[in-house]
């Protein structure tokens, strides 16, 4: 079964700025896929559309067999419950404890929101929060305020919070862009291990090609809002990188006239 289906998505801002133009792909359950592309290629818009934060101008998105429709709030909330998100800026509440931040991951599952406050939470919920913290190796920091953590620790707490959802899909939007290389590797190892052990579909936006090749099976490259290439990460070589990002890896401005035809064709065959 397909975990993610994106069907001819088009997103136009202010009736003239085309962010996404006819983007289509499907991702199977348990697949690990990376989205590549330079700044402004449409990666973030794609992610925001997948999670219903943006409404596509045309086309449709289906997650776990449910259509993502920002207009139907209740239906959207139900869909989001099994989709965990990891953000570049972590999205933690800085002035509360690590434990409380993890408990907030259960907000979508409780009938009465204050039931996620540590003071009122059930024993079962509190135990589960500690298990999630233990899974990311930070149970010993449960009582620490979130703003007293390093960047790598914050991202691991954000992952623990996401685990409270018991997700079937993880969408990671540049999860290591704010981290140093060592912390970045630790976070990626953790995400990959969790996805593998629970057969979770993992879709990531990453900028670093070596990291993408190490942690993903497949890549989808976006350029100017369109799918530029889609295939196994093993086919990515220097020529492709140059064609996608320019001469020395990811850059602000992509080259405009290079033709990546051979790689693109090879990738599309896969």
């Amino acid at each position, binding site marked *: 079964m397909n975990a993610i289906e994106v069907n001819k998505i088009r997103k136009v801002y202010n009736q003239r700025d085309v962010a996404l133009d006819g983007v289509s792909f499907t991702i199977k359950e348990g697949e690990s896929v990376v989205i590549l592309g330079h700044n402004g290629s449409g990666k973030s818009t794609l992610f925001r559309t997948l*999670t219903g*934060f943006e409404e596509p101008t045309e086309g449709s998105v289906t997650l776990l067999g449910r259509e993502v429709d920002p207009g139907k*709030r209740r239906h959207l*909330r*139900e*869909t*989001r*419950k099994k*989709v*965990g*998100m990891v*953000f570049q*800026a*972590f*999205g*933690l*509440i*800085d*002035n*509360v404890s690590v434990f*409380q931040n993890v408990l*907030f*991951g*259960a*907000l*979508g*599952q*409780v009938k009465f*929101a*204050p039931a*996620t*406050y540590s003071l009122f939470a059930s024993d079962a919920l509190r135990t589960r929060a500690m298990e999630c913290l233990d899974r990311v190796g930070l149970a010993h920091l449960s009582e620490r305020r979130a703003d007293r953590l390093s960047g790598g620790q914050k991202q691991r707490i*954000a992952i623990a*919070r*996401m685990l*409270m*959802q018991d997700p079937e899909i993880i969408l990671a939007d540049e999860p290591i862009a704010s981290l140093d290389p060592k912390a970045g590797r630790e976070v990626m190892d953790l995400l990959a291990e969790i996805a593998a052990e629970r057969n979770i579909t993992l879709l990531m936006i990453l900028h670093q090609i070596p990291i993408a090749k190490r942690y993903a099976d497949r890549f989808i490259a976006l350029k100017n809002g369109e799918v530029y290439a889609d295939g196994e990460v093993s086919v990515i070589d220097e020529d492709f990188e140059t064609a996608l990002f320019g001469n020395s890896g990811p850059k602000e401005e992509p080259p405009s006239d290079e033709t990546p035809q051979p790689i693109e064709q090879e990738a599309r065959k896969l």
Partner: protein
Amino acid sequence: MSPTPPKRFEKPSIWSFILILVVLLFLVTGINNANITLSRVIGGVMNIGDFLGQAFPPDFSRIGPIMSAMIETFEMALVGTLAGVIISVPVALLSSRTTNSISFLRSLTRGAVTVMRTVPDLVWALLFVIAVGLGPFAGILTITIDTIGFCARFFSERIDELDKKPKEALESTGSGYFGVITGSVLPQATPSFVGTSLFALEKSIRGATVLGLVGAGGIGVELSAQMSLRNFDQALMIIIIILILVLVVENISQRIRAKYI
């Protein structure tokens, strides 16, 4: 030839000129109507000296009833501020763009808060004395309204300034509107809410001391009575007690803010 520097003075527009003239007119008539003369200024200084002469030493013989009036004043301020702070939270959520997307409702609550803030507390006190009669209840209602006018505005401004990323992170878990408010807006804004509430309490205590002048309970009525009876030594004692209470509350509030916020 060197270039000409800009003009020292720009000629104002006709409307600015009219505005300046009107303000000047009010200034002149204001000073004129106040009948400020040198003899009155000198007389005033003499009268203050006379007051101080009669007020010293302050008379502490009625400390018992005065302290109970002071405690009533403090209680009025505390109860009124707490009620105002509690009501301010939902009002602020309705006034903020972050938490209320219905612009009509937002404008309505903002308008109501503006009315509460701009009408002076003594005017509210007069209205509530008519509504519920003389005594501390009228004072509590006055302080509640005054606190909503102050806190709801600052609370909603704080909510507007909050980092939007945690809100989006919690929305992405499938959380609904109240979940996002519970898990993101309130925890992030609470330190600022507490700080603002402590300022509101300080303001309420200062305000509560004069509400008695219009019959809305508290120590103000005692002060007014002693001044009218020219018992200046007792009036000074009341002023000293008010001063001590305000300073103590301000000091404690400052310490709490410094430690926790």
